[in-house]
């Protein structure tokens, strides 16, 4: 077991434990924080796999921007207490069983897959910005443009949804 | 060309009927249309001895479906029956008020067009098309006019038959897929059907048969019949029992029996047994009915049972018997329904116990009732006889190991038939007069009934008139 493996296991454990806490903690704010922690662990994995750019983006976009947005909304709604009504124990148990079975079913498929001998090749520089940028703008230019369309749509949507209706106010 | 006219005249007159606003106008228009169809049907039937008329037009080239019609003897006979029945019904209906007449006559004529198509289609897809086209107007007719349970019963009828059609559709498409280059042509279908493995033929046979069996109907798929007949308006009942029933039989004769020639003989046996049960069951049930329409409905089950047996007896005589009987039964049952309708309208009830004394009050109607009744129980020298005779003979000659048992048990039907029919006559016609104001037939009723009586007697005395074209 080399250092690589050890880091992998630590990061994995970290990620899973934090993920579980995301699910089980009663206070949404805690969930957010644990989720950010999970993202950090995942970014760690990215770095381990030599995908530095993604690791950074993950932290900046995900852990940074998106999660802050979450936090912001939670705070805005004053939900930062554990007031969330809990589902019954039965539901918790059922959720656990369901997710467990899902995992089990998928993994059972791989029982026969005989994947053990496939190592991750040590190809070095595909995770670098230069390579990614080239790929993005050569092969993935259409998706790139489309993502802007998507953003536009989301923007229009968020505005339609978010804006208070003038007519509605008037009629009230 | 005549074949096309047979389809187009009712279709066009039917669609045009919807536009009429005034009752007398639409009645006249519909009758003119029906009579025109009758003329065309008669013309094409007269030409049958020279050649079998055909018509072929491109329809869906990408599917291999053509608009092809063929007037085989059986088909033309059935179209003739259809063409005869409608004007008769219209005439008998002449002096009766009906709500929304334009819709009524329009739908009736559309149904006629559909029926014509069913009998004439020589392309499987076209056949299926018309099969449904005939059903839809009848559903609307049955749902809009009739007894108070009509919505329920018409829907039951519709779902029932539609389910059958859908099963047939599954079989039909499967069969189509098996054709060498995707064709619905009759001959291609015949060749393909015969070339399928026996097991597939069996499955398809069952699917097709359920569709036809529901329409006929065969025991135990008959449960829509009595209630539908009971609740519908008589003209619709006539379309149902005189014509749509024949669709099922016709379908078996043209599209089932020849298409899957190699199915297990056991199927035939089972169908024969079911038909036999239908004969006895229908007859016994008819005996205990208190509603005159239900009685006739169950009698129809019994009659059709015999025809089904005839089809699957696989003998020449039986086949000829079936064709003859299909025509004759159509005529007879039309007459029976018309008389039953007149009785119902006059007594304002269908309950056999409250009827009686018709013979004293309306002797002409009674004569009609008696003659039609005896035609229905196949008395010689009425049209009912020769068909049943050929059927019995054909069943008897069948190579089925149980042929004698089948024939004898089916023969019990003629005894039971006499029981329920004479019961009906006794309860309706005989006894003391129950009501004082029972008018005899009016002129229009006379016209249609007398035509039926004439056909009954002429075809009874000289059946060769019909048989010679077979």
């Amino acid at each position: 077991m080399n250092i690589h493996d050890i880091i992998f296991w630590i990061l994995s454990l970290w990620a899973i434990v934090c993920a579980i806490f995301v699910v089980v903690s009663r206070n949404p704010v805690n969930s957010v924080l644990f989720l950010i922690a999970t993202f950090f662990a995942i970014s760690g994995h990215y770095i381990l796999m030599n995908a530095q750019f993604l690791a950074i983006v993950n932290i900046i976009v995900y852990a940074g921007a998106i999660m802050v947005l979450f936090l912001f909304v939670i705070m805005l709604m004053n939900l930062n207490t554990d007031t969330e009504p809990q589902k019954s124990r039965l539901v918790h148990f059922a959720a656990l069983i369901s997710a467990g079975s899902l995992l089990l079913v998928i993994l059972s498929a791989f029982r026969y897959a005989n994947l053990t001998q496939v190592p991750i090749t040590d190809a070095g520089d595909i995770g670098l910005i230069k390579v990614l940028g080239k790929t993005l703008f050569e092969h993935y230019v259409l998706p790139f443009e489309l993502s802007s369309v998507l953003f536009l749509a989301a923007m229009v949507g968020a505005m339609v949804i978010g804006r208070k209706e003038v007519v509605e106010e008037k009629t009230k | 060309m005549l074949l096309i006219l047979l389809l187009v005249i009712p279709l066009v007159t039917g669609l045009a009927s919807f536009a009429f606003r005034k009752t007398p106008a639409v009645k006249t228009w519909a009758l003119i249309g029906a009579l025109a169809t009758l003329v065309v049907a008669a013309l094409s039937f007269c030409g049958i001895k020279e050649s079998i008329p055909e018509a072929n037009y491109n329809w869906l080239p990408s599917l291999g479906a053509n608009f092809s019609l063929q007037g085989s003897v059986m088909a033309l006979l059935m179209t003739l029956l259809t063409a005869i029945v409608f004007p008769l019904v219209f005439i008998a209906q002449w002096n009766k008020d009906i709500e929304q007449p334009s819709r009524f006559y329009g739908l009736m004529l559309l149904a006629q067009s559909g029926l014509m198509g069913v009998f004439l289609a020589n392309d499987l897809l076209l056949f299926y098309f018309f099969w449904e086209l005939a059903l839809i107007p009848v559903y609307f007719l049955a749902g809009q006019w009739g007894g108070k349970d009509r919505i329920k019963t018409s829907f039951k009828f519709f779902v029932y038959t539609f389910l059958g059609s859908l099963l047939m559709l599954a079989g039909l498409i499967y069969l189509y897929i098996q054709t060498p280059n995707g064709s619905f042509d009759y001959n291609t279908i015949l060749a393909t059907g015969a070339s399928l493995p026996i097991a597939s033929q069996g499955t398809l046979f069952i699917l097709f048969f359920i569709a036809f069996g529901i329409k006929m109907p065969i025991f135990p798929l008959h449960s829509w019949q009595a209630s539908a007949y009971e609740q519908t308006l008589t003209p619709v009942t006539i379309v149902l029992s005189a014509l749509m029933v024949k669709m099922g039989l016709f379908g078996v004769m043209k599209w089932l029996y020849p298409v899957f020639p190699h199915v297990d003989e056991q199927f035939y046996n089972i169908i024969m047994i079911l038909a036999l049960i239908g004969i006895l069951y229908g007859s016994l049930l008819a005996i205990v009915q208190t509603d005159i329409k239900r009685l006739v409905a169950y009698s129809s089950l019994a009659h059709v049972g015999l025809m089904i047996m005839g089809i699957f007896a696989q003998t020449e005589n039986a086949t000829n018997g079936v064709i003859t009987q299909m025509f004759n039964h159509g005529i007879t049952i039309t007459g029976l329904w018309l008389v039953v309708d007149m009785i119902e309208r006059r007594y304002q009830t269908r309950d056999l116990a409250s009827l009686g004394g018709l013979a004293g009050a309306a002797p002409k109607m009674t004569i009609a009732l008696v003659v039609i009744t005896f035609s229905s129980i196949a008395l010689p020298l009425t049209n009912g006889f020769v068909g049943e005779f050929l059927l019995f003979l054909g069943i008897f000659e069948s190579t089925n190991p149980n042929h004698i048992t089948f024939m004898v048990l089916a023969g019990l039907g003629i005894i039971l038939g006499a029981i329920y029919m004479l019961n009906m006559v006794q309860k309706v016609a005989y006894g003391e007069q129950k009501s004082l104001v029972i008018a005899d037939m009016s002129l229009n009723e006379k016209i249609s009934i007398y035509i039926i009586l004439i056909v009954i007697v002429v075809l009874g005395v000289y059946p060769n008139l019909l048989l010679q074209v077979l």
Partner: protein
Amino acid sequence: MTQLVYLIPLFPLIGFLLNGLFWKSMPKKLAGIIGSVAILASFCVALGIFFEVKSGGVPDKGIVHIFNFISVGKFSVPFAFLVDQLSAMFLLIITGIGFLIHLYSTAYMHDDAGYTKYFAYLNLFVFFMLLLVLGANYVVMFIGWEGVGLASYLLIGFWYKNKEYTNASKKAFIMNRIGDLGFLVGLMLTIYNFGTASYHEFFGQLSGGIGTMTDTGYMIGTGMTNAIAICFFIGAMGKSAQIPLYTWLPDAMAGPTPVSALIHAATMVTAGIYMIARSNALFNLAPMAQNMIAIIGLATVLLAASIAIKQNDIKKVLAYSTVSQLGYMFLALGVGAYVGSLFHVMTHAFFKALLFLGSGSVIHAMSGEQDMRKMGGLGKHMPITKFTFLIGCLAIAGLPGFSGFFSKDEILAAAYAKNPMYYYFALLGALMTAYYMFRAYFYTFSGSFRGTEAQKHHLHESPAAMTIPLIILAVLSVIGGYVGLPEVIGEHLNVGHLLNEYLSPVVQNFDVHHLSHSTEWTLMAVATALIVIMIIIAKAVTKKEQFKEATGLAKVLENKWYIDEVYDFLIVKPMAWIAKILNNVIELKGIDAGVNGVGQLVQWGSTRLKNLQSGQVGSYLFAMVIGIIIIFAIGIFGLFYA
């Protein structure tokens, strides 16, 4: 003349059509005239044909082709008539007696509202009856066969307002239908095995006897012939009122009395005998069927005669008497004495028509009363009726010199030759016949009147239109027997059995042994002596004129051995019960409920399934995940194990 044979049924048909189509506008007198004249015309033609046949001058084997009735594929049945000795004889009986009865009816039915209708029906009956006997094949015979059933139905239910009467007519038709089914099956068997329904072809193929091949390639065996013969006999059972299908005939007395005379005594009921005699070639090859016919005939003789003993309705007595006499005819057929049977058909037609018409005359005088207990002493008021009725009684009782004697004697002799036991039982039946007929005669015509004053006042002799047929028939009842003198008498007078000679080209007795002269004389003497004794007993019994409540066997007899009740219990009730069960349980609760149940199942499933849609997105997600798990499981299972 033979070619004109189509005229014979045509006249009645025209009569029927005229009376039937113009029933409303037809003057009453004219209706009777049309009806009667039509039959008379037929009779004349029949007479001409009879003489032509008798002289042997019939062309084309007597077959007259009218038109193709059924001709389809390989199957063909012509509508053809066969003129031969047998049919000619029946033609005469039918049209002759038919005419007399029409004539009689003009008076008898004079006051009835349905006068025109009556003659229309009667002509229709004659038409079908003529078809029956004229047909050159079984199909045409079947047409007539069912047709007479129809006419009988219409005439029994002539007074349709009475429910009893219409019940009787229905019963008659349905029982006949049961027999008809037998006929039909026999017909099918014939066509199936022999490929033809025509008499000539059929009998031609049979002439080879057992073991030869039919045209369709089947070997003729006794199994086949017995089966066909028995089926035909079942048909005959229905039409000719044999056990177990006889019960309709007594009930059929509901119709007008002339109808009973014509249809239910003289003509229609003998159709079965005609059919079997016509098919003698077949029955000769079917020994089992023959035995069956003989035994059933004999049983019918005894059963019907025993019932007739205790009947009080004059027409019922005659009806059971008819059944009984028909039994004799079948006995004769069963022992192979076809000619004897036909002989008895003829004589029976004379005297039974006479008796019925006589009873009709009585009933006419009694204003519709039929119960003998209310009659008595009528002889004083209606001498002609009394006298002719007496002749009829003597004839049916079989006293020497009267027609019944000769025909019955021939049957008894043949029975004795076949099996003495047959003879003893048949003789017993003959004795009972003598007893009940004279019981009826004495009750009716002698003693004092037991009816109401009003009836007494009304008593009168019938008009000439009624008495003339009576007289003619009385004469025939006396002389009719001389066409078939038994050998023991005939040889002295140098006269043969005329009927036998006449019929020999078509029908010949089969396997009938000749008795020695001494035996025959003995039999005749014993029978005659016993019959005279029975008549004396009848006179003695009827003297008392007491009508007590019957007990014991008498009650059983009075109630006709409870056969109707037994039928009701064994057949009618169970059938109604089964039908009810089928209707209420199988149809409504089973099939119908099943079909509706499918609809309800859909509705039910719908109300169940809608609970899945609880409105809570959490449960949706749950259900979705569980569904996904199941799909994955199936997919993986399918991947590895399927």
